């Protein structure tokens, strides 16, 4: 009797330790309803495939995300796997927060096989890779078909080149008697996606490159057409008067309230625009110039923090890999509406009228290496503001380059 009891107790104890032996990792991402639901579903599937791993999913409001992540690290209670904007990687790495992805598992060949070409450099810092994206975003030209028709333009034909874009924009702008713009031809919002369009698309189309290959130097003042880029952009505001920054408060409001005929925006806006009643719009690849096509891509990626060691590191690697699997990417496109980072999977959607133009843009897209995205956006906003307030584009462009160089130097010192 006693012996049976002892065996029973031992069995229970063994079972208990077995269930305790489950490796538990913590995953953090910001609060976005469809993303959370999808990740919950993904975690369920992951735990089914890996019964020895348990994933705890923690969310924070987007506004507080960085602060929460930041505060948790010194306190030592942070996550094992963290979802972060790729532009934050340099800061997180130099702060000793992220650990590099092991090269044997995440080789160059692995990146080439699974991701669009801009992803590898985007997650690389000083020769090591730090994170993997689930989904990516790019820009497209979005146009309002009804306003095209009203202006006597073919509603099925978006402008294909910058020259066409300017011509169309002029035709599509409507003024009141006093000369105030009441309908913008094209939104001009550097604080929105405008700064990305200038930096990664216009600069390249005017023959320049934004930064040196090691990302330490501003190059747009030394290469290509230099200040002509800014002149092109601000001429639309100052000379052609097709719109101005802050028209209808912002570009998204202007376009969704049908007060702007064209806008340049990211794939993350698809959902917002679809929910606007009566808005008859379509997407197109960004207009080319001098035969050059370019686009800006950005993404959120999953990295492994220094918290993860031993079994938890092994589990974290598995989880990060799983999050970037085709299964998750496909689910992500369907549930969240973000573009798959895998070209093979993306190819299935090339003919989709919504996703197609964005996906084609990914082939020739560049992901800017941001050291301080807010500050780098600010210098472009300021340059445009300067020209509006009477500076010459040459002066504004030169000052923009030297101000941004200060931002870069501060990071690299």
């Amino acid at each position, binding site marked *: 009797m006693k012996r049976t009891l002892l065996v029973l107790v031992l069995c229970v104890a063994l079972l208990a330790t077995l269930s305790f032996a489950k490796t538990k990792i913590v995953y953090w991402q910001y609060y976005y309803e469809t993303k959370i639901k999808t990740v919950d579903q993904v975690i369920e599937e992951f735990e089914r495939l890996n019964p020895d791993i348990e994933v705890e999913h923690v969310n924070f409001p987007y506004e507080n995300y960085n602060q929460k*992540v930041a505060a948790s690290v010194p306190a030592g209670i942070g996550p094992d796997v963290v979802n972060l904007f790729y532009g934050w990687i340099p800061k997180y790495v130099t702060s000793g927060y992220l650990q590099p992805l092991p090269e044997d598992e995440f080789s160059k060949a692995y990146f080439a096989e699974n991701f669009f070409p801009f992803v590898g450099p985007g997650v690389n810092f000083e020769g090591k890779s730090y994170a993997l994206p689930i989904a990516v975003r790019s820009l497209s030209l979005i146009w309002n078909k009804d306003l095209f028709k009203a202006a006597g333009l073919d509603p099925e034909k978006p402008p294909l080149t910058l020259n066409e874009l300017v011509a169309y924009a002029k035709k599509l702008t409507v003024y009141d008697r006093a000369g*105030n713009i009441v309908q913008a031809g094209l939104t001009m919002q550097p604080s929105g996606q405008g700064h990305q369009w200038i930096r990664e698309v216009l600069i390249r189309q005017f023959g320049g490159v934004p930064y040196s290959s090691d990302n330490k130097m501003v190059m747009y003042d030394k290469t290509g057409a230099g200040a002509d880029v800014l002149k092109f952009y601000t001429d639309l505001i100052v000379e052609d008067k097709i719109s101005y*920054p802050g028209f209808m408060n912002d570009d998204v409001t202007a376009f969704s309230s049908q007060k702007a005929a064209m806008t340049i925006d990211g794939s993350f806006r698809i959902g917002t625009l679809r929910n606007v009643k009566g808005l008859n719009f379509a997407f197109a690849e960004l207009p080319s110039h001098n035969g050059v096509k370019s686009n800006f891509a950005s993404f959120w990626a999953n990295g492994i923090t220094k918290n993860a060691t031993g079994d938890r590191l092994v589990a974290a690697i598995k989880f990060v890999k799983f999050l970037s699997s085709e299964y998750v990417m496909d689910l992500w496109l369907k549930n969240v509406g973000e573009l798959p980072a895998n070209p093979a999977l993306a190819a299935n959607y090339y003919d989709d009228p919504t996703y197609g133009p964005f996906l084609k843009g990914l082939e020739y897209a560049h992901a800017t290496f941001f050291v301080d995205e807010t500050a780098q956006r600010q210098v472009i*906003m300021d340059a445009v503001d300067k020209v509006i307030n009477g500076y010459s584009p040459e002066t504004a462009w030169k000052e923009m380059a030297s101000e941004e160089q200060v931002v870069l130097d501060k990071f690299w010192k």
Partner: protein
Amino acid sequence: MKLRQKKTMTAYLFLIVPLIFFIFVRFFPTIYAFWLSFTDWNIISPKMNFVGFDNFRALFADSVFMKSLWNTFKYVLYGVPLVLVLSFAISLLLNNIRKGQAFYRLIYVMPYITPLVAVSWVWRWMYQRPPVGVINNLFSFVGIPTQRFLFSMDQALIAIVVTTVWVNLGYCIVIFLAGLQTIPKEYLEASKIDGANRWQVLTKITVPLLNPVILFLVVTQSILFLRIFTQVYNMTDQGSGGPLNSTKPLVLYIYQKAFLSFEMGSASSATVVLFGIILLITLLQFRLLKRRVQY
């Protein structure tokens, strides 16, 4: 123990609770910020190196910081006199009416009890250019050229001051009214009998007797304008304090340093500078305005 001693003990016992609160929630973070201002902490790094006065030197060499500092003074210089004069004038008028005083008071206090973020956004939309901005549409209607307001380097700061004055007006009116009602009627009547005109009554009796109220309002309103943030953050494009930093106050500069550029060390230095300024201005005002008037 005597009854008196017991009473004092009880009082101290109750005072301990707020004291603990103040030490941990107010003083400790303040002192910590002072310490941070001498480090290069970048908010996500566990490393925190002592750098002496480097942050302060860098701040005063930073043109954006100097601009924010100057903007902050502009907010105070434009805002405080405007809100005080307006609210004093309105409260004098309100003090004269008996019927409907509560109603008017309520109207003026409404902006003050409305969440500042909502107020800022409503004003932001009112300041828009056509086709949506109410103010500009009105201008258009009567034939005045439309203004750029929040997008103009010259008008943006003043536009924000106007909104802030509109918000703070109600509070100042209530305080002024309370002050006016404490002035003994005998003084006013006696002065009238002595042949004082309205202006003399105002300058020789009302204003001097309101001195403590004025001091209180000058100090609190100055501190409010020195710490201006919410309006600017919500009324400028992407909360940037633009165009070209023309509306950026110190607190917004601090916020951007700390939570967008993650430079906690230099953000703390800027906080220390702001703290010093507020302390100095407040002490100065106490010294200049603290005059007891008795008749």
